[in-house]
């Protein structure tokens, strides 16, 4: 038997292992608002297989009595991955837009830096569910208004009123297809999170 000190023997080679720092940001908003487009504009897209519980209706049809409560079927989703020269890896997870995927949000949200709620002014109500979720869970978020071609432009303050957002929540206009624009959105979020770090201060950085 090798001696086995309580810690420090992490690698098979016995050498010190540098653990890559990881962080994640959630990209949220209604179905079809451009979440995948935004993630793809700035990061490498990778596939992920996950599960969804079968709905009550399908459980009834398939009659899984006696099989156990956790009956699932697998679904595919994507995530974004950005490696920085510092060794940090940043992950972007789009929150699933449909109602049946709500169960996944907590899993995605654990330990996240914060969230971007992507909004489309033509269907502004579509992002209410996301905003509710992040307000309830206390996760810092900003609102990014995806300015599609031909979409009517609104002033951020009008959007703030429409979404009943507090004065501290930053609202930025963006083009989800444009790398620089997406970069600015993410930078705004991280700056906002840093400013709310002390929790006592409710500083608006808009």
């Amino acid at each position, binding site marked *: 038997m090798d001696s086995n000190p309580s810690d420090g*023997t992490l690698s*098979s080679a016995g050498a010190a292992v*540098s653990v890559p720092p990881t962080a994640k940001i959630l990209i949220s908003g209604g179905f079809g608002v451009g979440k995948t487009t935004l993630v793809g504009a700035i990061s490498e897209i990778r*596939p992920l297989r996950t599960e969804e519980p079968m709905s009550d209706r399908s459980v009834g049809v398939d009659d899984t009595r006696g099989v156990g409560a956790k009956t699932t079927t*697998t679904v595919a989703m994507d995530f974004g991955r*950005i490696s*920085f020269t510092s060794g940090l890896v940043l992950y972007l997870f789009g929150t699933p837009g449909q109602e049946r995927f709500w169960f996944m949000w907590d899993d995605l949200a654990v330990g996240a830096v914060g969230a971007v709620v992507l909004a489309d002014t033509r269907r502004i109500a579509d992002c209410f569910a996301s905003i509710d979720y992040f307000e309830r869970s206390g996760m810092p978020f900003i609102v990014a208004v995806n300015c599609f071609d031909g979409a009517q432009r609104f002033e951020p303050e009008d959007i703030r009123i429409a979404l009943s957002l507090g004065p501290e929540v930053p609202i930025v206009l963006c083009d989800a297809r444009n790398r620089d624009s997406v970069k600015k959105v*993410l930078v705004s979020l991280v700056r906002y999170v840093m400013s709310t770090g002390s929790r006592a201060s409710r500083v608006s950085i808009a």
Partner: protein
Amino acid sequence: MTSHDGYQDRWFDREAGPVVRPYALTKGRTLPSGGAEFGLIDVVIATSGRPPEHFRPGPEHRRILSLCRRPIPVVDLTSEIDLPLGVVRVLLGDLTSEGMLRVLSTQKQPVTDQRLLRMVLDGLESL
């Protein structure tokens, strides 16, 4: 699939997709043993530990171990191995409780570490 059971006319073929249900790989278990939790961006690594007498790593356990020779985040591992996340978590739990795998870093709380936030900010601004 082999046909040791003697049936000649199978109603499925390759196009039917995998015949083994994902959770057959975990012997029906849907949660990792020992109450272990593996966050999406938690980083894991294989230890040099040999499997204990009572534990026979399956092919999927071995695939995971080979991908974990270097530190790897759970989400990258899952993407790489192309198994559902829940299945990977159960298999990771097996390996952890048998001392063949360790969690190197985990992030369960909201991020308040200003140093990490600064790294994210600097990284994004350098893009």
